[in-house]
């Protein structure tokens, strides 16, 4: 009994050390384009470090038990009638409970960190999902609207995400940002980009839709650019002046934090007359 235990322990230790080492060395795909992304990145690694001992324990047990306790061909007898082991059950329950508390505590703390605007008044950008494209409005620039997401680097930003038809979900993979765009609801995501970037031809650094929203859901992607503060100001001011000059701003609905979605079905004729 003790002999078996020690051997399993040895296999478990070896497996654990190898896998922990591998995870520390191998790049787990988890982008770090924003401060929030860093927090999530650390969480993913922490989850790997915590999960591996459990993973290797089950494997160590299987790898040891299956060859060791394999029934010999002629053996048709039964094993010993062991039914319970209260200390073992208690130990197992205790370890899993402590792990759960630790994970929940860590998660709560990180969540608090990444869902707060960090320092100063954030720059608001409204993100509007509709079938099947994204629109970005900049309230500080007169509600000017763009189909490309342009962000200043190293600046606290709040994305106010909503939809005007069905449920979409904003996913900026490289910035670790995901927020559902639910009609009638405004969801907030905070971010602070750590370096400049732009969408490339291989499909990296794009904004995608992450909730099935109908026919062209898979194609609901938009380009984005993370630029220096000065470049952002230049771009946004130019956008504002262009849209003012060509009359777009006048025709757009006045900027409002909440978009009320138009009806799914056309209104009945008598509604139009009033």
């Amino acid at each position, binding site marked *: 009994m003790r002999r078996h235990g020690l051997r399993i322990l040895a296999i478990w230790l070896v497996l654990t050390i190898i896998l922990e080492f591998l995870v520390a060395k191998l790049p787990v795909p988890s982008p770090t384009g924003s401060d929030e992304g860093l927090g999530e990145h650390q969480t993913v690694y922490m989850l790997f470090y915590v999960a591996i001992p459990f993973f290797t324990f089950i494997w160590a047990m299987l790898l040891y*038990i299956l060859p060791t306790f394999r029934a010999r061909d002629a053996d048709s007898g*039964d*094993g010993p009638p062991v039914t319970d082991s209260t200390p073992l059950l208690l130990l197992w329950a205790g370890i899993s409970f402590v792990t759960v508390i630790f994970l929940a505590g860590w998660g709560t703390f990180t969540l608090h960190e990444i869902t707060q605007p960090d320092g100063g008044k954030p720059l608001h950008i409204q993100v509007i999902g509709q079938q099947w494209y994204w629109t970005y409005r900049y309230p500080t620039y007169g509600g000017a609207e763009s189909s490309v997401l342009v962000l200043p680097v190293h600046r606290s930003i709040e994305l106010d995400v909503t939809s005007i038809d069905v*449920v979409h979900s904003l996913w900026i993979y490289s910035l670790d940002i995901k927020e559902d765009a639910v*009609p009638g609801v405004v969801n907030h995501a905070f971010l602070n980009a750590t370096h400049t970037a732009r969408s490339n031809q291989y499909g990296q650094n794009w904004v995608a839709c992450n909730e099935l929203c*109908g026919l062209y859901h*898979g194609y609901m992607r938009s380009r984005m650019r993370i630029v220096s503060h000065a470049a952002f100001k230049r771009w946004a001011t130019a956008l504002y002046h262009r849209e003012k000059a060509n009359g777009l701003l006048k025709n757009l609905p006045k900027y409002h934090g909440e978009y009320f979605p138009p009806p799914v079905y056309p209104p009945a004729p008598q509604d139009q007359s009033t």
Partner: protein
Amino acid sequence: MAVAAPVERRSTLFTSNVFTALLVAVLGFLFIEYVIGRGGGPLWAFGLSPNSTLLLAYIVGVLLYLAVLGFFTYPFKWILGGDETQEERLYRYGAVPGIGKYFRLTLDHKIIGAQYLFTVLLFFCVGGFNAMLIRLELTGSNAHYFSPQTYLTLVGEHSVMMLIMASSIIIGPFGNYFVPLMIGAKRMAYPRIEALSFWLFLLSGLVLLTAIFYDGFPTGWTGYAPLADQAHLGMDAYLVAFGLAGTSMIVSGINIVATVLLMRAPGVIWTRINATTWAVVVASILAWLAAPILIGVLTMVGFDRAFETGLFVPAWGGSAFLYENLFWTFGHPEVYILAVPAFGVVLDILSVFSRKPLFGYRAAVVSMFGIGLLSWFVWQHHLFVSGLTPGLRPFFMFSTEMISFPTGIIFLSALGTLFLGKVRFTLPMLFALAFFPNFLLGGISGVFLSDVPADIQLHGSYFVQAHFHFVLMGGTLFAFFAGVYYWLPKWTGRQFNDLLGKIHFWTMFLGFNGTFITLAVVGLLGMPRRVPYYPPYLHTTNFIASVFAFILGASIFPFLANLVYGIVWGKQVNENPWQARSLEWQTTTPPPIENFDEIPQVVAGPYDYGVVPSRPMAILRPSQVTAAGATAGAE
């Protein structure tokens, strides 16, 4: 058998079976939909929308199908003061020769179990074929084979078909066939209700397929409103199909819970019920309680579509977020309706083939109930980024992580059973053992997803897709195949081919893990679910996943070959080829119409392997023992 003669007479004019029932149902459906419904018919003139006539046509079709099968015959006869004759009873319970009884309404739980098994396999093949087409599309980064609409229909058909199928994959064939045998009952508590659960299940899958004729549905299995409100007519097929499946789950749940509560043989105390039965009971309670929420929410979407009630349309004062919440209040218990029966099957098989009692039996059973209870408090983890009060997110993170606690106990129970045992690597044992590595990955990826900061990145990505395939396919489906190889010799009296079974196992195991480990990486690299297009940098990983998926798909062929072999030509075996203790193995093979010649007197537990002195689990002919005892006392 003597009762065959009257049966021959009554079936000359009109045979009521699945084919006639479907034929009449389709004719009724077509009449409502195309003759008096659409395109200027009376219903059209009456002002009913296309959605409402289609829903009406489906409802009429369902009622006709049930009527032709004969569901209303006995109740009406009974209400009007009549009763069944003995001949009719024997016919209804399948006490007649021939295979016709497998194709009509039969009330014997063993025949219903067989009907379920083949229907489950049919649905699995259809859903699996859809999955192959999806992976075919995803071998390249842009749409090559299907239009986006066809692609979404494939996604929807695959997911709903598999969900409907998996809800019954263990409860249906094995729960129905073996629960009465395991608890020493002659029959189920409510045979008619049990039969209803099967026939609704069959119909739900067929109705789902009719969505193809109405341009499919674009929503996947979640059916999120308001996307569902603007979808084509195929969406109504989804509503009806899922509603029928939900009804089937409710009635099946009621029947199984009642059977285990009321029909146990003398001596079957709570601790002499095996893990499979307990697991099926937990899943049945969950089904009974959760499916009504599903049916309610589907009805509301149906009203939205047919009568423009706007319950989930924000512009009309409805709420899309409400739909998500209602759906997942059902959706999360549903996951455990699929997963928990697998725990029971795996634990039982491990105990038999380790020749040891189930380790920590009481803790394992209580854990299953604990999982069932916890499953009601975690639904928000599907909606962490959808707009819940942020302050509640830590609670749902904690409750979700708590699920790993009872699940861990079940792992401990399984490992403790193997430890010091005399492990025999039979076919069922291989599939039961594969449960560990597969479900382990499912559980660990689940902990990643329960953690809100990690979930923000992983939510809705292929990582989630890999996660629930590890749980449902790696867990439930492997347990199902373990069950087929374990229990079918009891139905057929024949053994499967070992080599074919091993080819099936290894191709399935490698194909499965190759596919979904790769897809988990695809998710970590940033690919959303349900897209026919993905950016070029994801091409290599997707291609690898598709290759593995085709291997996985091919693994069904050795299984089907083995199934035919095992039923027709397999080596004949006695009634207890595995030397198992559990009660279902003690009766003759195949079990007689009332399962046991006499209600057995159960005197020991199902797991007393290695106990000295060893006692049989039950006295199979208690009347002879009592008679012998009485004689002995008189002398």
